């Protein structure tokens, strides 16, 4: 139930009913009514909860994320994040970083479309996913075919590709990591590293 509406409903009822004067005497004058009309609705009304863990440091505090459908985009949007009181490590607490997580998820600098910066250009321009991915696949195939080393000087099969490198993340899931591993390794890439290195 939306508290804002219920308070206003109560005032409406009071204004139309028998006790208008006595309510006024109790302090529910016009200014008060106007103020109450601006009271924000209960933030978590009609939200969906999801359990997650903080993506920052390796303490991996449990969090609960609250989301609802965004009117503008029609997509689920995170409206609140708090510590998970059931989590054995953080028991509901969060640090100054974790406490502001919602603003990271919804940061204005989140990327929303693929973009390309052409050689020598001074700005990005939009590009479609299909075109971007085809470009990448073409470039990979051409570079691999041109530079893949099948045998070393001694004639030993080495099957390595050193002219393309891949730097993996520090906060993707294990499942993303495994898929990334499969893709990168199967091509023979050896310049493969992740944030643990630094």
């Amino acid at each position, binding site marked *: 139930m939306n508290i804002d509406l219920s308070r206003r409903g109560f005032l409406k009822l009071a204004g139309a009913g028998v006790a208008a004067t006595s309510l006024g005497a109790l302090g529910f004058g016009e200014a008060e009514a106007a103020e109450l009309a601006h009271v924000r609705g209960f933030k978590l009304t009609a939200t969906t909860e999801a359990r997650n863990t903080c993506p920052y440091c*390796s303490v991996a505090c449990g969090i609960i994320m609250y989301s609802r459908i965004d009117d503008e985009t029609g997509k689920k949007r995170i409206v609140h994040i708090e510590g998970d009181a059931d989590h054995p490590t953080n028991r509901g607490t969060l640090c100054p970083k974790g406490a*502001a997580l919602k603003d990271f998820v919804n940061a204005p600098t989140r990327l929303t479309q693929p973009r390309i910066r052409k050689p020598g250009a001074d700005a990005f321009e939009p590009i479609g996913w299909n075109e971007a991915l085809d470009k*990448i*696949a073409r470039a990979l195939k051409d570079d691999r075919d041109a530079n893949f080393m099948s045998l070393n000087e001694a004639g030993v099969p080495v099957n390595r590709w050193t002219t393309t490198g891949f730097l993996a993340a520090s906060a993707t*899931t*294990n499942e993303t990591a495994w898929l990334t591993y499969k893709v990168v390794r199967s091509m023979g890439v050896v310049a493969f590293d992740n944030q643990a290195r630094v």
Partner: protein
Amino acid sequence: MTNSWTDIKNTDLVVVMGGNAAEAHPCGFKWVTEAKHHRGAKLIVVDPRFTRTASVSDYYAPIRPGTDIVFLMALIRHMIENDKVQWDYVRNYTNAAYIVRDDFGWSDGLFSGYDEEKRDYDKKSWDYVIGDDGFAVTDPTLENPRCVWQLLRAHVDAYTPELVERVCGTPADRFLKVAEMIGECSSPTKTMTSMYALGWTQHSKGAQNIRGMAMLQLILGNIGVRGGGMNALRGHSNIQGLTDIGLMSNLIPGYLNIPTEQEPDWATYMKSRAFKPLRPGQTSYWQNYPKFMVSFMKSMWGDAATVENDWAYHYLPKLDVPAYDVLRIFEMMDQGRCNIYFCQGFNGLLAFPDRGKVTRALSKLKLLVTIDPLETETSRFWENHGEHNDVDPAAIQTEVLQLPSSCFAEDEGALVNSGRWLQWHWPGAEPPGEAKLDTWIMAQVFLRVRDLYLKEGGVFPDPIVNLTWDYADANEPTPEELAKEMNGRALSDLSDPADPSKTLVKAGQQVLNFSQLRDDGSTACGCWIYSGSWNENGNNMARRDNSDPDSTGAFANWTWSWPLNRRILYNRASSDLDGNPWDDSRRLVWWDGAKWTGYDVPDIAPTAKPGEVGPFIMNQEGVSRLFSRGLMRDGPFPTHMEPFESPMANVFNPAMRGNPVARVFESDVARLGDSAEFPFVATSYRLTEHFHYWTKHNAVNAALQPEFFVEISEQLAAEKGIAKGGRVRVWSKRGEVWAKALVTKRIKPLICDGKPVHVVGIPLHWGFVGAARKGWGPNSLTPFIGDANVETPEFKAFLVNIEPAAGEAVS
């Protein structure tokens, strides 16, 4: 971590050295507070800066950046000299008794076998004497002058409290107080925990810093026990997982290795991985290597991996160098030998040392692909931001594709915390705009490349076209499918080894755990150490039972930890040789007369008799190593090495610069500075209000710490005429930055070798995109040199100069 965050409550003494948990891991640090309040535990902090961890410590000692080995070896010397040794542990659970070859020795700060030309050691002499029976020779009395214990004693003899004062700048009385507090933990009923982070790893000898403390912990009997351990506080939410799954140049998931050119076939590769026990009756668990390796190959290439083709051994690349780590690949890029580079959620322009070189290298690429939820400096390295990124876009011919990905709140799967817990999480929203899940992006890249090979042919398409890709929707592999693949399954019916008439696992079923993996091709498993995480019982990583019987801190039914849901590694060492707990109030795993039992999954075969099988089952010795044989490039014992840029010469060998075996690229030699030109020691660190380069995108954190600053002592400020809050220029041989000066009492000058040493602290959270003000990071200044074993760059000790700059002081 050998232990877990929640286990820290069981400790008697916390030593934070090489980290700053109160600020960088605040909610984990609460378990230190818990131990202090409820157990009366003490906290010691050794750090160049009086951090917030130090501010709640019981004792603080300052130290010059990059001299930790001197401090640690002096602690070991103190324990030996003052009989602060848990003797039963040292005698039975370490290699103290092992006899070392006669030709092993050291002089002038170098071990036997050094080749200056190659900057490498011939490590042949760093080994045990092997008897005629094929086993290592030991002297359980520890009296033989060539036993590890006597050699260690001789090695640490030079590391006196006076040497600590001279080299580390730590006053001798402060060192002694720390040593006394630590010495109390040699009792079997007292434990100490070591909490460290990048303050120890980001050195040209980072791995040896950690070994130094691990050795001390073994001498005190603190490994494998509740409240003890070596606890690496990982800096990111899943670098533990990314490393477990082997996303590094030389790794295969589960800490298996990519072959080298010296291993041209399967037989040769396996020959050096026999892991024959070095003492009678020992487990030497790595003897199972072939089972894990074959199962991995089957997971990758299915039917294309057969016994006839050596399980598709040649589908794997063979390395000609130890690793194509990031420093090597950026060196190659700078030489024009790398054309395409992907950055998936990794902001290299701010993360790698010598930013000038990084920019130059990226500018030579043909194509850079970034995959990130956020704008990054890396994806905009070509964009001019005045003094903050002074480049000419027209001169940079690199094409950049910036792909928008989901963030944690929008995807599902597991992250591995520092304590090895694989915690499943669920999405709460959808990625914004056209942003996509990382799994979708990787699948698209792969499917399109595979299609091109299928259509056009090309060079060695076999490992690509034969890669297992049996997902229900090829375009969108699900987290469930991928997690199950890592757990592993039977490819044909597995019979029970104890009774071959019975079927243990039916074809197609998930294996229970890695004990069911086979080396005959009948099982597939992507990452053996994760085997058990999603078996026929379901997704164990999603378990949410937070009960903790007898309040041990184990939380054994909360999610799942590797290996086998074990919460404390080496936990058999929590009991004595007969299998009785060292400390009855901190029972963990014990022998009940017939088998091992306890609060945790025993780290030993359940029926291995006490006294016969040693507790360190992953080692060929069955015991832990105070002497690490040839396993590390820079010595079987840690020895003092100065940082590559240091205000003083190495006291053991003034001609030796840095780590004598660390790799230095030719082009970087001229980019190293000396103390005449750069008299001040700089070190990098995190602030509690920021996470790396992410939170500067967020208005709240950007407001809390809006602007780049450097931290200096009042004495240095006075010497240089720097006002509080004034603008300064800081420069090294490689670059320069401008910052506000935070003049503080938290950093004080140290006296090293009779001379004052000033330390400049440089936090790392600013760049040129996001909500915070534009700034720089330490990587504009740091040297392009990594640790000799693992190539982690030396961010924690380097040289700079500082001067006041034009601009008004803010305070």
